[in-house]
């Protein structure tokens, strides 16, 4: 019997030739990632009590992204603590004000196929878009990783999610993942890997694949993986990685706990309604619902391709007077690309407010949280009660295109109306 991608990566991480789903293995961690809000200010106490010596300065990456820019003194204190800790530990890699950690570690080449990456954030699984086995851990577990470079993991079973065919215009990887989460349910993949495959997935850019792996955890999954191909190599080369890259994929006779099959050409834009990510409906069921704010950003959907899509829809149009449209590029690099391409001008002229790269309002931290009774249409990943601010607010999730169309109308809108070429 062959091995899944998860089994292959965890076999390598546990220095064994073969492991099987269900086994508990001790693994060596390739990258340990922390961010400011769940990093040094929470781990340092136990870290010091246990000796305070890092297993490898080159393999610990810290990204300050949740408290940036600090909106309160408490956030500023956490940020300072993080920065001071990175300096004291002489970390080779500390980033701040550069954008959400998952995007930053991908852009800086820390994410590679076959690596085992553990981070103090549940969306660490995004790295699976480049073929790394990546998952979220808590701060206490991170203490152990920082000291020893090891932890135990149960080798997960894998659910194979196959999307064949070609996505229609106005329908994106966000719609694929929302539909998948709807069908699996928000706990449907707990303890398991979601492995996305099929011609529709192969056709996606790395930017768009990241959306799938990022949101795997919203179905409870341990990680989300996508077979690596030439696009992964091109991405890493474009980020300055010159070393040899070993591609990784599941064996044809690997064993899956479940297989879901879809035809992408039949998919319409999807929207996750309050207050669960699996409360997903086709756009026609929610069109016309009034919003107070739209949010285009986050580690899920704030990449250059997302900003291009939004700009295509908003070019020459105006954001509804009744709402705020916040745009948050997912990294400084993306901000610069968007600036060079004139996208920031297009969006600003349309009435959007472009904020600096950060986790921002996605988790209710800074810059654009919502008040009681307010409704948001967001391109981010979670719509839990209170997620973006008031527990009496409401968050809808959709693709960047759906967000942009909604910005124009001030009500949830079908992006296809702004993209389809009229046919007579």
């Amino acid at each position: 019997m062959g091995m899944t991608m998860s089994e292959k990566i965890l076999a390598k991480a546990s220095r064994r030739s073969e492991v099987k789903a269900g086994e508990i293995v001790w693994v060596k961690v390739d990258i340990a990632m922390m961010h400011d809000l769940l990093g040094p200010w929470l781990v340092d106490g136990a870290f010091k009590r246990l000796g305070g010596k890092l297993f490898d300065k080159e393999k610990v990456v810290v990204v300050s992204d949740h408290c940036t820019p600090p909106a309160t003194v408490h956030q500023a204190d956490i940020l300072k603590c993080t920065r001071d800790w990175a300096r004291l530990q002489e970390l080779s890699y500390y980033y701040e004000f550069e954008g959400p950690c998952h995007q930053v570690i991908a852009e800086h080449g820390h994410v590679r196929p076959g690596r085992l990456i553990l981070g103090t954030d549940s969306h660490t699984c995004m790295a699976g878009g480049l073929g790394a086995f990546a998952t979220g851990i808590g701060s206490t577990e991170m203490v152990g990783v920082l000291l020893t470079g090891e932890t135990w993991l149960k080798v997960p079973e894998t659910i194979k999610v196959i999307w064949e065919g070609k996505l229609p215009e106005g329908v994106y990887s966000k719609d694929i993942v929302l539909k998948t989460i709807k069908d699996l349910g928000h706990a449907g993949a707990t303890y398991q890997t979601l492995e996305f495959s099929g011609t529709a997935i192969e056709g996606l850019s790395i930017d768009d694949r990241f959306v799938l792996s990022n949101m795997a955890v919203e179905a409870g999954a341990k990680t989300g993986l996508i077979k690596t191909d030439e696009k992964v190599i091109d991405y890493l080369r474009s980020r300055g990685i010159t070393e040899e890259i070993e591609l990784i994929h599941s064996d044809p006779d690997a064993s899956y706990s479940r297989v879901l099959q879809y035809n992408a050409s039949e998919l319409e834009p999807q929207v996750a309604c309050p207050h669960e990510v699996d409360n997903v409906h086709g756009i026609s069921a929610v069109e016309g619902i009034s919003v107070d704010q739209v949010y285009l950003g986050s580690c899920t959907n704030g990449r250059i391709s997302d900003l291009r899509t939004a700009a295509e829809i908003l070019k020459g149009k105006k954001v509804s007077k009744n709402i705020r449209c916040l745009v948050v590029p997912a990294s400084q690099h993306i901000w610069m690309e968007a600036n060079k391409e004139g996208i920031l001008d297009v969006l600003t002229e349309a009435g959007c407010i472009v904020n600096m790269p950060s986790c921002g309002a996605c988790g209710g931290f800074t810059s654009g949280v919502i008040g009681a009774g307010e409704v948001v249409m967001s391109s981010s990943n979670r719509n839990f009660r209170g997620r973006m601010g008031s527990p009496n607010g409401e968050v809808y999730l959709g693709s960047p295109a759906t967000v942009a169309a909604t910005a124009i109308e001030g009500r949830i809108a079908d992006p296809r109306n702004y993209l389809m070429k009229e046919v007579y």
Partner: protein
Amino acid sequence: MTVIIRGRVWKYGDNINTDIISPGQFMSLPIEKQAEHAMSAIDPKFSKKVKPGDILVAGNNFGSGSSRETAQMVLKHLQVGAIVACSFARIFYRNSINVGLPVVEMEDTSVIKEGEELEIDLLAGRIINHTQTSEYKGTKLPEHLIEMVELGGLEPYLAKRLAGDNL
């Protein structure tokens, strides 16, 4: 970690996620301040009414969402004795064991009512309802975690491991 826990039940439904337990907007506050807002989105009086040793009983998928250990920290600060749920989200379950917050899975928690008195034997996976004088089967801890739980969580376990004990 105590392996026998006895306390009064506070009852909740499915999908009690980490944003409910530990809302993002308060996460930069000191833990004692964050704890005042624990569960507030669905139960504003929770932090005032919960007493040391009380047990939270919930439905499916408890602790879904974020990897934030502030969720465990606020519940521990309020001295919650244990959580019994039909199922837990993966990271929450793991974090709870690591910090010594007892978590037990039980197939159908709907038989337990708010205000009842439970006693949990963590290692045996047994739950006694003293109010109803009934007994339920909970899932046992995975074997490889028993020693960690007996030692009180990951930190003492790591201390032992780093001291050279071959665990």
